């Protein structure tokens, strides 16, 4: 549970989302799309973004 270890820093509602650029699978994962980098701020002014952190590939949920 997240509550077990209090983090030093955590992003909260109303904060500016920290920008990032990461290597990615391409716009569609596992469908042969060419790999690319994805930058959060490229969506600014265009789309809402749902960032879904997950612990590891090949795990359930």
């Amino acid at each position: 549970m997240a509550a077990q270890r209090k983090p030093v820093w955590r992003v909260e509602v109303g904060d500016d989302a920290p920008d990032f650029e990461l290597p990615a699978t391409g716009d569609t994962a596992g469908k042969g799309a060419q790999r690319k980098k994805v930058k959060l701020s490229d969506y600014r002014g265009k789309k809402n973004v749902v960032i879904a952190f997950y612990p590891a590939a090949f795990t359930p949920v």
Partner: protein
Amino acid sequence: MPSYEDDLSEFERRNAQVLGISTDQVPTNEAWAKSMGGLSYPLLSDHWPHGHVAALYGVLRGETGVCERAIFVVDRHGKIAYVDIHAISEQPPTDKIMAALDKLK
């Protein structure tokens, strides 16, 4: 993550792009997505510097080097609109994500 594929039209209707992030490397994520028949959104690799984006968002688990199961909704203006740091073994409720998106202009 796979369930967001089923809800894709609901995300599209709300002008929302789903980005999955883990500390896995890109080939691992590609293989995983392929094993599920492919996904309509990208999986991002926070592998090196290890977990630096997860750490920026405060969701890197220091003892294991993986990130929490966590949702952040970012609006079109780049502001955080919703946060759910979830129990790591459970699926965060999608209806709450949709409700948060519905509130955005």
